[in-house]
């Protein structure tokens, strides 16, 4: 992180400045001049001092195709969340508790830490799976209804829908 170029640093600074400014407006929920002015100052200071560790991406993250895929990811994720809740409701309400739990592992193709974190959070909220640990590129996942213990098949079953989109964003 020490050997970032100046342009790189500047573009990271601008990304976190914009994001923090959006958060500021959302929290204050007002467009009064003095509020905006204070917000611009404070967010600039925070963004400046957190360049080395707070930011994940340069300005290229805001390109239209990536933003489109982010919104697409949001819809896919919401649909999976609803599906997983119906699945949980069915399991909880059945008197005999139809579960077959176990822990499976699989390898991911994602390379950056941020994309792995998003994938881990997503598979926790998708049908029947709960991520337990990530070691390098191996995910360990608790599965409420184990269909296969083979890593490749498990990867296809659990993570492929999200991975395809995340590869295009990061």
């Amino acid at each position, binding site marked *: 992180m020490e050997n970032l170029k100046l342009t790189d640093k500047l573009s990271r600074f601008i990304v976190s400045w914009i994001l923090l400014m959006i958060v500021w407006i959302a929290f204050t*929920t007002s467009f009064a001049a003095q509020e905006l002015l204070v917000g611009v100052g404070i967010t600039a200071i925070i963004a400046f001092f957190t360049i080395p560790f707070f930011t994940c991406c340069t300005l290229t993250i805001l390109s239209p195709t990536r933003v489109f895929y982010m919104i697409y990811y949001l819809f896919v994720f919401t649909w999976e*969340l609803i599906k997983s809740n119906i699945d949980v409701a069915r399991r*909880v309400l059945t008197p005999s508790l139809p579960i*077959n739990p176990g*822990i499976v592992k699989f390898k991911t193709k994602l390379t950056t830490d941020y994309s792995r974190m998003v994938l881990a959070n997503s598979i*926790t*909220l998708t049908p029947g799976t709960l991520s*337990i640990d990530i070691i390098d590129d191996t995910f*360990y996942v608790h599965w409420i209804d184990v269909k296969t213990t083979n890593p490749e098949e498990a990867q296809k079953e659990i993570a492929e829908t999200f991975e395809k989109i995340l590869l295009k964003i990061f």
Partner: protein
Amino acid sequence: MSLLFEIIGGALILIGSIFLLLGGLGILRMPDVYNRLQAGTKATTLGGMSLILGVGFLKVEDDWTWMVKALIIVIFIAFSNPISSHALARAMYKRKRYPLIKNDDGNMDAYKEVSENIKKEDKK
């Protein structure tokens, strides 16, 4: 228009409260800690999100700031719930609460060998 928002808001609130109830029921009924985490996390995440969005929809015409605040809480729940459940699951495994396994064929618990290796390295 206001009737439409009322119907959407009321439906979301009802669905949300039903899922919150199912979350409590899942916590009570499931046999071991990992299955409890699964049921509890998923059901309360969607339940809370939909109930809070429902309240935002009911207020959206009077005062749009309610919707913005509701969205902040929804985003916060969506981020924080999986992280805390993940931390709890890993802590439980490190305390040797091994998951319940029904049809054991030898490789149903892929994490066991890894966690033993981690402990050996810690002792060195």
